[in-house]
C-alpha cells in the first residue's frame, strides 16, 4: 500500500515539476521568437526577459471586467490556463515518459487542449463586444478545420509505433534507433503547418497585430486585462512550447533520457533545448518570409496538411 502511495506521490511530483518547468520557460520562447524576428528585420527587438516583465506587470494590475459579463468570463482564462497546465503533464519533455502517462495518450491531449479552447471561446462571447465574438468564431473555425489534420498526422506516427500513448510511442521510436521513414517527413510537414495554425502564427494569424479585421486569437482576448490577460497569454505561450516539444519528441526523439541518471537527464534537457530552439528558428523563418493568408485561404493550407498526413499514413502501410 505504501508503495502505491509512494508511486502516486512520485508521479504527482514529476507532473508538478514538469508543469512548473514548462511554465517557467514558456515566456522565454515567445520572446526568443520575437527577438529573432526583429533581428531578421534589422531591429533590436525586446530584451530576452520581456515575457516575464509583461507577466509581472499584468499580474500587478487590477482586473477590469465588463459590466455585462458573467462568471463565465472570469472562469474562461482560468480553465484555459488549467487545461494548458494539464496538457503539459501528458507530453514527454526531457524524459521519455510523460508524468501523467497513466491518464491517457494523444486523444486525451487533443481533448484537453480543446477543453481550454472551448472555455476561452465561450468566455469571449460574454462581454457583448463584437470583437470577442469575431475572434471566437474564427478561432473555433480554424480549430475545427485543423482537428482532422492534427489527428491524422498524430495517427500516422502513432500507428507506426503501435501505440497512441506518447510515452510508449517515443520509447518505441528510441529503441528502433534513428531511421527516418519517408512517411515521417510527410507527417512532420503536415503537423508543422497545423502547429503554426494552432499557435496563431503567420501565415494563419498574426500575433503582433491589433487590427480588428485580421485578428483571430487577439480579438478573442481583446477585452481581458490585468491578471486575466496574464493567465491567457501565459497559457498560450505554454501551448506553443508544448506543440514544439511534441513535434520534437515525435520526429526527433534522439537524446531523450530513458533513465533517471543525472547525466542522462542533463543530455535530455540539452537535447530538448536544442530541438525546441531549432523549431523556433523554423517558426521564425516561416513567419518572417510569409504574408498572412486571408482567412478563407486557411482551409487550403489545412487541406494540404490533411493530404500530407493521409499520404504519410498510406505510404507507411501500403
Amino acid at each position: 500500500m505504501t508503495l502505491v502511495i509512494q508511486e502516486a506521490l512520485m508521479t504527482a511530483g514529476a507532473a508538478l515539476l514538469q508543469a512548473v518547468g514548462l511554465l517557467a520557460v514558456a515566456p522565454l520562447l515567445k520572446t526568443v521568437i520575437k527577438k529573432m524576428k526583429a533581428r531578421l528585420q534589422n531591429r533590436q527587438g525586446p530584451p530576452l526577459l520581456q515575457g516575464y516583465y509583461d507577466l509581472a506587470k499584468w499580474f500587478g494590475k487590477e482586473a477590469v471586467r465588463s459590466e455585462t459579463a458573467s462568471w463565465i468570463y472570469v472562469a474562461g482564462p482560468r480553465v484555459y490556463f488549467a487545461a494548458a497546465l494539464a496538457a503539459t503533464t501528458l507530453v514527454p519533455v526531457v524524459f521519455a515518459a510523460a508524468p501523467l502517462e497513466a491518464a491517457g495518450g494523444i486523444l486525451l491531449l487533443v481533448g484537453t487542449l480543446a477543453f481550454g479552447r472551448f472555455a476561452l471561446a465561450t468566455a469571449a462571447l460574454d462581454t457583448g463586444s463584437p470583437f470577442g465574438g469575431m475572434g471566437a468564431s474564427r478561432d473555433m473555425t480554424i480549430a475545427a478545420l485543423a482537428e482532422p489534420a492534427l489527428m491524422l498526422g498524430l495517427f500516422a506516427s502513432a500507428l507506426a509505433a503501435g501505440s497512441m500513448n506518447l510515452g510508449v510511442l517515443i520509447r518505441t521510436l528510441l529503441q528502433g534507433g534513428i531511421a527516418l521513414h519517408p512517411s515521417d517527413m510527410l507527417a512532420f510537414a503536415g503537423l508543422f503547418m497545423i502547429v503554426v495554425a494552432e499557435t496563431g502564427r503567420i501565415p494563419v494569424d498574426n500575433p503582433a497585430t491589433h487590427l480588428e479585421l485580421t485578428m483571430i486569437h487577439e480579438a478573442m482576448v481583446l477585452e481581458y486585462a490585468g491578471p486575466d490577460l496574464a493567465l491567457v497569454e501565459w497559457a498560450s505561450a505554454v501551448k506553443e512550447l508544448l506543440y514544439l516539444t511534441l513535434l520534437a519528441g515525435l520526429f526527433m526523439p534522439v537524446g531523450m533520457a530513458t533513465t533517471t541518471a543525472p547525466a542522462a537527464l542533463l543530455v535530455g534537457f540539452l537535447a530538448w533545448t536544442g530541438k525546441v530552439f531549432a523549431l523556433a528558428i523554423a517558426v521564425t523563418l516561416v513567419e518572417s518570409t510569409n504574408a498572412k493568408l486571408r482567412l478563407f485561404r486557411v482551409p487550403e493550407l489545412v487541406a494540404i496538411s490533411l493530404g500530407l498526413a493521409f499520404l504519410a499514413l498510406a505510404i507507411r502501410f501500403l
Partner: protein
Amino acid sequence: MEALVAVGVPVALVIRLASVAAALGLARHARACRWAALGASTVASLLTGTVALQVIGSGHTIDGVLFRHTASGTVLGYSVTPLSAWFLMVTSLVAVPVALYSAGYFAHAVTTARTAAVGTAFTIMLGAIEVVFVAGGAIEFICAWEVMTLATSALVATEHESRASRRAAYLFLVMSHVGTGCLVAGFLILAAAAGSLSFPAILSGHIVVGPMRDLLFALFFIGFGVKAGLIPFHVWLPEAHPAAPSSVSAFMSAALITAGIYGLFRVCAFGLGTPEVNWALVILAVGALSAILGVLYALSQTDMKRLLAYSTIENSGIIALGLGAAMLALAHGRSTLAAVAVTASLMHVLNHAVFKGLLFLCAGSIVMATATRQIEQFGGLLRQMPWTGVCFLVGAMAISGLPLLNGFPSEWLTFQALLLGFTSTPGLVRLNLPLAAALLALTTGLAAACFVRAFGVTFLALPRTPSAAAAHESPVVMLVPQVCLAVLCGGLGLFPGLVLDALRSVTGSLPGTQPGVEVRSMGFGMPSGLGSFDHVVPALLALALLVGVIGAAALSSRRRAAARRAPTWGCGGELTANAAYTATAFSKPLMMIFRAVYRPTRQVDALAEVSPYFVQQVRYRSENEPIFERYVYGPLVKGVVRAASGMKVLQAGSLHAYLAYVLVLAVILLMWLGGTT
C-alpha cells in the same frame, strides 16, 4: 424482487395501460390527468429499468409471454436479451427525467383540452418502444413498431393548428411507413425461409444465402435507417423533433432514434449471419456522411430545437461509425476488435441519450421562458436562468466531446475501434478507417464550434429582445430532471470504466464478438487495444485540471483590490445588444468554407427613400439549399405522383370494371396455381 423482475415487463405494460385509462377518465382535470399519465409512466419506466439492469448484470435473458390465445394458438412472447436490456435501460434512464419534467412543462405548454391526449400518446409511445426492444418475434416487433410510430406522430401533431406541425407529422408518417414497409418485406422473406416468425428462428443467421442476403440487408438498412435518422433517410427528423413539445422532443432524440439503432444491431449486424465487407462499408459511409452533414447543418440553424435535431443526426452517424467498424471486424473474423467497436457504439447510444435529453430539456425551459425558438432572440439568459444555463453548458461540453464529460469516452472508444481496425484488418479497404477517423475528428471540432455558438449566443452578453430580458427560471420540477442528467453527464464522463464493465455481458452475448481485456475497466478509466495501444483515465485528468485551476486562482488572486467593473467598449457609441456577435455571424466563416455543402443563396436589399446614397434600412435574407429534399426526394415524389396518376386509368370508378379485374385476376391465379400442382 426476483419475482418482480421476472414479470417486470408485462407488469409495466399493465401499469401503462391502466394509466392511459386513468388519464382519459380524468381528461377534464388537467393536473390529475398529468400526474396519472406521467407518474404511472415513471413507475413503469423504473420497473423496466430494473429489469434491464438485472439482465445486464447477470447476462441471462429473461423470456416470457405477453399474450396467449389458446384457441387460435396465438402466443405473443417477449425476451429481454442483454442487447435489448441495454436499450431498455437507456430508454428508462431518459424516460424518468423526461416524465418528471413533463409534469411541469405540460402545465405551461399544453392546453387543458389536450393534456389527456398528449399524456396518453406519451405513455403509449413509451410502452410501445419498450415492446420494440423486448419483442420476441416479428409480429410483436412490427405491431409495437407501428404503435410507436402512430403515437409519436400524434405527439408531433400536438399543435395541429400550425401548418408546419401538420406537415412535420405527415412527413414523419410517410417516411416511417416507407421504412416499416421495408421491414415487413424483410421479415416476411426471412419468415418464409425459416418457417417461423420468432426472432431466435429468423435471426439465427444464414437463413438465406447469396444475393437474397444483400437484398435483406438493404431492406432492413432502409427500414431501420429511417428511424435512426441516418442521412439520406433523415428528412423527417429536423421537422418532426422540433414540432413536438420539448420534453417529447427530448425523448424522441435521445431514445426513439435508438429503436432504429437497435434494429441495425439486432438484424443487420448480428441477425443475418456474418456481415459482408460491403455492408460494413455502407454503414461506415452513411455514418460518416450523417456525422459530418448533421453537424454542418446544425451549425447553420438559428432555431434552437432544429439545431439540436440536426445534432441528433450527427450523433446517430457517430453511433453508426462504431457499428460499421464492428461489422468490418466481424466480416474479417476479428472477434476482439468487434467487441471494442460494439462497445464504442453502444456506449455512445447511452451517452448521447443522456446529453441530448439534457440539452432538449434545457431548450424546453428556454422556449417556455422566452416564447421563441430563435437563438438570435435570446442573449444574456444566464443571469435570469442560472440553473438551466449551467445544465446547458454541461450538455454543450459533453456533446462537443470534451474530456471529463460523457461525450468523450465513447468518441474516444470509436477512434480506438477505427484505428485498431486499420491496423488489424487486411486489404486496401482498411484505408477507409483512418479517413473515417479524420471525419470524426472534424465532426468533433465542428460540434464544439456549434455548441460554443449555441451556448454563447443564448446565455451570454446582453438580452437581445424584451422577452429574453424578462425570462425567468423554470420551476423546480423541471430543474431537478435537468440537474440529474447533468450530473449523469459528469459521472459517466469521469468513470467510463463502469459503463465498460456493464457492457461486457451485452457484448459477450452477441455472436462473433469476444470481449477481451481490451474492454475491461482500468481503475476508473478504460483500456483498449491489443497490447498497450491506448488507455484513458479521465478522473486523473480531472485532478490535474483541478490543480491547474487552483494554481490559476492563486496566481491571479489580488490582495489589494477587487476586480473593477467597467462598461464594454462600444466602439465609440453606447454598447447595445445589437452590437454583439449573432449566431449567423458566428457560423458565417464555416458557411463560406463549406459553401459547396450549403449552396447558400443570399439577398441583400438596401432600401432608400430619397437617394440611393442614404440607405434607410438593409434587409438581408440568406437561405441554404435543401439538397436532399430537392435532388433526392423531389424527383422521387414526382415519380410516385406520376405513377399514381398513370394508374388512375385502372381506377375509373366503375363497379363493372372492378368486378372484371377481380374475375381476370382470379382466372390468372387459378391457372398459375393449377400449373404448379
